[in-house]
């Protein structure tokens, strides 16, 4: 047997080298990630305008549900005060992300990936061990039940068993029948998460969005904390909402931005370039006066 100057038998060296090759070109997403808000910044930082349904392939049911939504519900109704984002929204909201993984010590494979987000301390486990999703009659949660598979060096995650929540924080609903698919890709110190929401109750076609993160090893995620409390006197069981046709704020968003009202109402048709031909030569206003240059939460141009 030939011996190298390391003193390790060459056959063993070859074995070690082979064993160190990443299985199926998997990426490691572990670490502290800080969010980038250059995509959909106004919606994600100051929060969406009332009745802004642009870019959402919603059906009539979702539109009326959002038209009826009254923001008082999240202050008047105690059960809404500490509600977290769902898994499909939490990566878009405020908060920093930590990712870590569980390794099977026997075969060194990743059996689960965990995420923690600042907002509501939301934590999720993405099972990588091939387990099945729970039956239909099992409990639903805000973060749902997630399983992941590798597609090359991309991590694809399927999440079911979500609780009903919103796809935009202005009352546009997402049902508990929805399925969330995510595709995680890493480019050096950057992470791109592409999400696809399919919802037979409120969407007429899949809603595709993406968000980006950068690796920030010095990041420290604080605690969140929330306690619900009766803040306002109210009758027992009151649920604030607008009766159909009575919401006075539906035109506000279109007026702020000089948009045709119909274009703000959402729907699959409005997602595609061909829709421009229906806008009858619409030109945006010369000056943007609201939420025009949001790069952080603190520099948005509020009117």
């Amino acid at each position, binding site marked *: 047997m030939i011996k190298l100057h390391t003193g390790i038998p060459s056959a063993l060296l070859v074995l070690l080298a082979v064993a160190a090759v990443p299985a199926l070109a998997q990426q490691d997403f572990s670490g502290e990630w800080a969010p980038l808000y250059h995509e959909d910044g106004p919606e994600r930082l100051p929060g969406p305008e009332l009745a802004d349904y642009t870019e959402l392939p919603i*059906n*009539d*049911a*979702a*539109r*009326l*549900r959002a038209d*009826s939504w009254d923001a008082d*519900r999240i202050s008047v*109704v105690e*059960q*809404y005060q*500490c*509600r*977290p984002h769902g898994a499909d929204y939490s990566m878009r909201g405020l908060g920093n992300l930590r990712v870590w993984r569980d390794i099977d010590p026997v075969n060194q494979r990743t059996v689960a990936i965990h995420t923690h987000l600042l907002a*509501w*301390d*939301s934590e999720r486990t993405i099972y990588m061990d091939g387990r099945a999703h729970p*039956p*239909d*009659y*099992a*409990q*639903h*949660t*805000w973060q749902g039940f997630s399983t992941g598979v590798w597609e090359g060096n991309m991590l694809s995650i399927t999440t079911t068993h979500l*609780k*009903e929540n919103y796809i935009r924080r202005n009352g546009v609903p997402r*049902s*508990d*029948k929805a399925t969330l698919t995510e595709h995680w890709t890493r480019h050096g110190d950057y992470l791109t998460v592409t999400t696809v929401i399919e919802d*037979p*109750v*409120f969407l007429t076609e899949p809603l595709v969005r993406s968000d980006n993160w950068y690796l920030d090893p010095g990041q420290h995620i604080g605690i969140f904390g*929330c306690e*619900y409390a009766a803040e306002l006197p109210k009758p*027992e*069981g009151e*649920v604030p*909402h607008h*009766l*159909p046709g009575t919401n006075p704020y539906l035109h506000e968003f279109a007026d702020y931005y000089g948009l045709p009202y119909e274009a703000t109402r959402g729907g699959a048709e409005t997602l595609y370039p061909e829709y421009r031909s229906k806008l009858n030569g619409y030109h945006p206003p010369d000056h943007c006066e609201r939420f025009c240059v949001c790069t952080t939460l603190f520099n948005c141009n509020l009117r």
Partner: protein
Amino acid sequence: MKTLLTIVAFATAACAQDPVDIQTLHVQGNVYMLVGGGGNVTVQIGNDGVLLVDTNFAQLAPKIMAAIRKLSSGPIRYVVLTHVHADHTGGTEALVKLGATPAAPAPALVVAHINVLNRMVTPLPGDPPVSQPLWPNDTYSTPFKDFYFNNEAVIVTNLPAAHTDGDSIVFFRKSDVLSVGDVFEPDLYPFIDLARGGSVQGLIDGLNHILDIAVPAKYQEGGTLVIPGHGRLCDEADVVEFRDMVTIIRDRVQDLIKQGKTLEQVKAAKPSRDYDTQYATEGAFVTADAFVESIYRSLKK
């Protein structure tokens, strides 16, 4: 308006088309949930024996008993009936018989609100008679009844004039589980059985009472778990969504009534249209029109 016969026919047809498997889910503490066929069956087990909430259909009793026996070899000591409908009470006689053991041959106590007994003894015209072995033998007519079983308090509370006029919810205090019958079904419009004393306001009051009892764990999730009459295991947040839906549609119908609209005009306005894709899916027992009509008639009473 639907009758008891309709309920039986609807669910029997469902059972006949698809051989029913009874699935078991551990809820938490001493409590399990059996799913399949008619209404969900709640099972509480321990050293004292077995307590059931609701009994599904009679023809499923052997399968339900087989599922119970995988959890406990103890005798069935208590059966609590949440309301009168056959998809929740039909298996009572068979399960009481099957659940007796040589060491505990006495029949179980069958607990229900007094109006469940009244409705069984005197069925509505056109409804089939209910045989005496299906009747509750331990009724209550007070706001609630409680007892201690399997090392925990069991609190049975009447929700007046809600789904029917004899609704009970059952709270397992140590396990922190509520079994609530058909007052709450997360994927379906509720059946407000006006002919048997149900009302939309009673239903809303009942849902708010459930919310008063349920306490969520961190960030509005988990904590007290809620077993609905039909459908998946839930918690407070799921009941909130359902309560909101019933309240909002009630408010819309009330507003249309104030405008002087007739029943046909109210239906034509489709006040539930933003909830129909969620709660009135194909094959649902209560259609959107039927739900709106039940609210209208309840408010006009």
